[in-house]
């Protein structure tokens, strides 16, 4: 009798436990925490931390466990080792983060083999999502802001001719190629394309910009990695008096990262960028996002487009966990559940394209101006809705494979 009782209890416990089991979802976060690009990693990480802090309770009874690892330098090798170990040793079910494209590229075969979803929060080389069916990207491809900027510059800003200046590494080449495609399609003419050194050292931009100034194009499209380069660009542009000389400064939003905008001074006023995020974006989610950010990180700290992408990334992951009831052991199912995910976030309306697993978002043309309170801000001039990655749409180069 007693034995049967024990058996009954055990059976009951198993059935009850089987349905209402609380899962701990392990998420591996791989970002550059040290080294020359640590500031980028920290911008994303802060957004991750903030989202998890505010929304962990939404997942109850399931929980998440975040394991953070340094992405290392942009060689891909460290990211590969570190992420592989996250998968094989720490047994994470999802990996996310990845500021550098080489990291994501290096890992594509590994995550395909391991069937682990890789949710990219930054890496912007367009054809990355083609490399594995387990890659989902929440951030952007270089083409997202650059391609629409081409048409916009010709049609709306009055740039009949444009020179391009870019940091000499793949994002710079991709961005300018995208701009050129869009610009020439609209009828514009590219007068020059100037590589400006490696991303590691901030160069003296003066000789490059002086050359452009001497050529008198209507506009100058500049791509540089967001951060110290951006400030250098603005200073050089201002010091050379290029705006007065009639050369407008345009580019993707990397040109005026929100956390450096205030330092840029008057030189920045009148700059027009195409981007999917600005601190001044006027939607309720962004207001809430900024409020939460300032509350957590202080009034002098600003989120930027990388933080916004990080926020949406964690949001997408959480929503998918919820959708699957915490049962994320099947990577293929996880990716399928993420396809078509959409939300209204700080960037506005974003969606994951089920065909490419890449982000679809609005691109806003924004101009820098001085707000009544004296601070620099960005006003929206126009919006291109639901922009896809044109590189894959047009099958340009490697995007076509």
């Amino acid at each position, binding site marked *: 009798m007693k034995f049967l009782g024990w058996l009954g209890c055990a059976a009951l416990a198993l059935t009850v436990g089987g349905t209402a089991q609380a899962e701990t979802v392990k998420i591996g976060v791989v*970002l550059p*925490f*040290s080294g020359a690009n*640590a500031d980028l990693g*920290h911008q994303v990480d802060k957004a991750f931390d903030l989202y998890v802090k505010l929304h962990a309770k939404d997942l109850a009874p399931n929980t998440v466990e975040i394991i*953070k*690892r*340094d992405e290392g*330098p*942009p*060689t*891909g*090798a460290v990211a*590969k*080792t570190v992420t*592989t*170990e996250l*998968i*094989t*040793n720490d047994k994470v079910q999802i990996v996310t983060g990845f500021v550098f*494209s*080489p990291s994501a*590229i*290096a890992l*594509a*075969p*590994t995550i395909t*083999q*391991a069937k682990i979803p890789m949710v990219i929060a930054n890496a912007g*080389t367009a054809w990355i999502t083609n*490399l594995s069916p387990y890659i989902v990207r929440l951030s952007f491809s270089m083409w997202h802001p650059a391609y629409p900027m081409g048409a916009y510059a010709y049609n709306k800003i009055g740039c009949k001719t444009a020179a391009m200046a870019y940091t*000499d*590494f*793949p994002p710079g*080449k991709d961005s300018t190629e995208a701009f050129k495609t869009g610009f020439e399609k609209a009828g514009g003419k590219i007068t020059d394309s100037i590589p400006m050194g*490696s991303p590691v050292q901030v160069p003296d931009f003066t000789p490059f910009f002086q050359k452009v100034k001497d050529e008198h194009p209507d506009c100058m499209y500049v791509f540089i990695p967001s951060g110290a380069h951006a400030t250098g660009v603005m200073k050089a542009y201002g010091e050379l008096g290029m705006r007065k000389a009639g050369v407008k400064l345009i580019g993707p939003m990397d040109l005026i990262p929100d956390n450096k905008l205030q330092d840029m001074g008057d030189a920045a006023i009148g700059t027009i960028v195409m981007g999917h995020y600005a601190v001044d974006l006027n939607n309720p989610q962004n207001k809430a996002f900024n409020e939460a950010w300032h509350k957590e990180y202080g009034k002098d700290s600003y989120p930027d487009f990388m933080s916004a992408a990080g926020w949406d990334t964690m949001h997408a992951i959480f929503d998918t966990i919820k959708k699957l009831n915490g049962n994320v052991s099947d990577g293929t199912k996880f990716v399928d559940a993420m396809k078509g995910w959409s939300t209204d976030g700080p960037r506005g309306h974003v969606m994951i394209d089920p065909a490419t697993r890449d982000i679809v978002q609005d691109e806003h043309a924004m101009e820098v101006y001085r707000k009544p309170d004296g601070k620099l801000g960005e006003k929206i001039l126009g919006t291109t809705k639901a922009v896809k990655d044109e590189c894959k749409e047009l099958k340009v180069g490697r995007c076509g494979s």
Partner: protein
Amino acid sequence: MAASDTESAARIVARERAADYLVSRHRFQWPEALPWLIAIAAFFIFPDRMTFGGQVLIMVLFALSLDLILGYAGIVTLGHAAFFGIGAYTAGLLIARLGYSEPISTLFAAALMAGLVGVITGWFLLRYRGLTLLMLTLATAIMLQETGNLRSDLSGGYDGLPGLTISPLFGRFDYDLYGHVNYLYVLGVLAVVFYFVRRIVYSPFGQALTGIRENVRRMHAIGSPVHRRLVTVYAIAAAIAGVAGALFTQTNAYVTLTVFDFDNSAKVMVMLILGGTGRLYGAFVGAVVYMVLEDYFSKLSPTFWQFGIGLLLVLAVLFARRGLLGLFEDAGRRLSKRKKP
């Protein structure tokens, strides 16, 4: 008995003792088996860390190649990553552009290419020393990198050549997620290369190198072809570095221009000095200690781990003047002294 007879007898005895000494060094001594035993043991004790393990062994090989020129010939260079990069890209381009993916023959091709560049650059550059040579080798490596960036249509630039799938090893062993096959593959290559390097170092050629390092004027004076010897060892070191680079590409299935980074040259030099130069096994100790600690510290603190590594280096210089291997040797000597009555 004539004085000259005693003298020549003494000389014969001295010569025999010297020969004995050389021969005894040439024979394998039991502590030498230690690193290999540890490497094999690691395979069984840490089966989950074999991806990392493979990268450590590649660094050991890279550091070993540097020891040949830095430790034995006394050439200090800041551009050794150039040869690593050439080997890495030989492997990468063979697969990406020519579809050739047999792993072992690729290693030979990488060694050949890197060695060739080593001969050419060495012939010009090894006429210089000190800071001059440092800057020349550094500049060469960076210019190679810039050339790769210029022709990024070929090299893939800093986004590199992705998806380089290697044919199964010996036609049978495929590569797994855990990196087991990769680890054993790299270990095997390391063992073979090490055997050759050891033969070189304990040969008359190796002795000549030590002579050049210790007193190059005297070597010139006795008519030793110094420059030719230096270029030879430089080319051999370059070839081995090339093999390390090719293994890097193969185990990562990916290569970017960052293989030519100055960071790479500096790191391998730091590892070697840390372990101890001119003793072959210094490469093992230095590379393993550095990479294991780097990994450990970066898990402890992804943002501040460099402090730990920096502190390690400072302490090593202050308290382990001949490298960590020097510490082991001193400890060993003290132990054996105690054994003697």
